[in-house]
């Protein structure tokens, strides 16, 4: 259950954002669509607890995250939210597998089987001991999805996951994300300007 009400945000009192309320039930996915500069990334950061809203409420799985302090927010995020960024980020000194182990360590969940299950399901099990900068673009995107879901989050947030992809790959990636989300019992919120994704979601909001 994800519910937001009257979220407002501004950058130094200069750029003001007001976001429409969001409400999705368990097992529902959501597409948030909007043009550049409208505050898509800001909304994603607010939902992920990376930014603090100036007013309004954000309730994730029964918890009002604006009431959490910085440390609690970090812990909450580690346990419940996985983020797929527009560009893949990794800890470059570590291999794919070590990145996933680090994510598990941070969330205090050690489970080697899960790492293998995820890598297998994403088709990159053979890359697990590769350094992340040895991966191809497609493999990187899969690895970053693995990183987002390794700790069994209840919510996966994806920021423009398809914007730079051709139609074929766009289809492939969004299907992969949805498949992973349902396979591992997570809800998916995709924030994008990419209209091609509309057909993949029953529920969408326009900013």
């Amino acid at each position: 259950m994800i519910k937001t009400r009257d979220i407002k945000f501004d950058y130094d009192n200069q750029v003001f954002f007001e976001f429409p309320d969001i409400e999705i039930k368990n097992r529902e996915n959501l597409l948030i669509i909007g043009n550049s500069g409208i505050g898509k990334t800001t909304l994603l950061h607010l939902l992920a607890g990376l930014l603090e809203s100036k007013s309004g409420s954000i309730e994730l799985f029964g918890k009002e995250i604006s009431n959490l302090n910085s440390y609690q927010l970090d812990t909450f995020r580690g346990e419940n939210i996985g983020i797929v960024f527009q560009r893949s980020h990794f800890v470059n000194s570590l291999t794919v597998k070590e990145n996933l182990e680090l994510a598990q360590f941070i969330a205090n969940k050690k489970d080697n089987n899960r790492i293998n299950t995820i890598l297998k399901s994403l088709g990159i099990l053979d890359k697990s001991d590769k350094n992340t900068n040895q991966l191809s673009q497609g493999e990187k995107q899969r690895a970053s999805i693995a990183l987002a879901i390794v700790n069994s989050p209840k919510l996966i947030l994806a920021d423009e996951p398809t914007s730079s992809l051709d139609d074929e790959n766009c289809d492939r990636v969004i299907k992969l994300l949805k498949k992973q989300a349902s396979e591992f019992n997570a809800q998916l919120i995709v924030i994008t300007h990419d209209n091609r994704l509309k057909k993949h979601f029953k529920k969408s909001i326009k900013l």
Partner: protein
Amino acid sequence: MNIFKLSIKNIISKPLNSILSLALLILGIGIISLLLQLNSLIKTQMDNNLKGIDMVVGAKGSPLQLILSAVYHIDSPTGNISVEDAEEIKNNRMVGSSIDLLYGDNYKGYRIVGTEDKFLDLYNAKIKDGKKWNAPFEVVVGAKIYSKLNINLNDELISSHGLRETGEAHVNQPFKVVGLLEPSNSVVDQLIITSPQSIWDLHEEHDHDDENQEEHDNEDHDEHEHDHDDEDHDEHENDHDDEDHDEHEHDHDDEDHDEHEHGDKEITAMLIKFKSPMNIIQFPRQINENTNLQAAVPSYEISRLFKLFGFGIETLTYLAYLIILVSGFSLFINLFNSMRERKYEMALIRTLGASRSQLSVMVIFESLILTISGFLLGLLVSRLGVMFVSSLMEESLNYSLSSLYILNEEFWLLGLSILIGLISSLIPAIQVYKMNISEILADE
């Protein structure tokens, strides 16, 4: 995986980033630790050999030379003194005990000392195999010498004249090894010991007439310039080179040998222990002012020597601290740049649920891992340095040093390394702590 492992991986993945700071730190720590080790080892060596010696009496000359030759057996003697003069000092009521020393010959660079039994007790040296020297030309050999030159009981040693191997060999009079000493960790380990009589006999066989030899010596030798047989013994010791070769070619003058058995014998130096430590102030001065002998106080001369070295050591130490400071600064710049390069990584780790402080700890770990390994490698370098210096000393002075211990001061160096690590990482750690992850991620 954990934060500590992550820090190690981060360092290993970009080894070139930190190599300069690490090298500087190793250099700085290495120099200081080497100086500390050498200072302590040399001091221990020197003090070990000083025990029980309050004063050394010998011929006039440099007091430091007298100490270095009579106590440490590393310099040339200042000259000889007559047995009567020595006797007079021994009879003084302030003198507790005394040991005569005669030296001026060597076997393969190791010095042969003619002395009394008490000499072994002074250094707590014990016979391991065989017996003490007794008859003339019987010798007891120090631990370092027999293990190095592979000398066994009953071997015969041909001594050479002077203090270097290149001296004229005393072919006619070999020494016989009757005893081997246990290692005593003192100067005895590198000496070959015999009776005073052996040395007297050894040199009685040659006479000489080239009086000009005396001229390299100190002025107080003039009085010895009668042509007694024992006389040349004196000279052998004084000339450091081989100029005395020709005198051996002259015929022996054995006739007057017996007449001079008493009276005109000479010794090289005498080690004195006082009855009361109070005498150390007054008695040496009395000897130096009122007799043609020289008295030197080892502890005083050695501390004077250390003071002379002290200035150089201090300068070098400050230089080393400066290098450590620069290494800390270089480490800080590394970390600072590295954090900027890795800001997306940091943001990622935060989005995975890591707290601000976990990231700061990671930065501090990276810094500490570097400085502590710098410390350990620095110690390693200093031990290699000690080995190197030891081999140099072994070659020229027969002394060697070995160090397996960590000195207390070196624990301070560990503390200093940790401190440098903490200070260098302080600003980068704060920077990471305050990082705005949303801004970094929105920036992509």
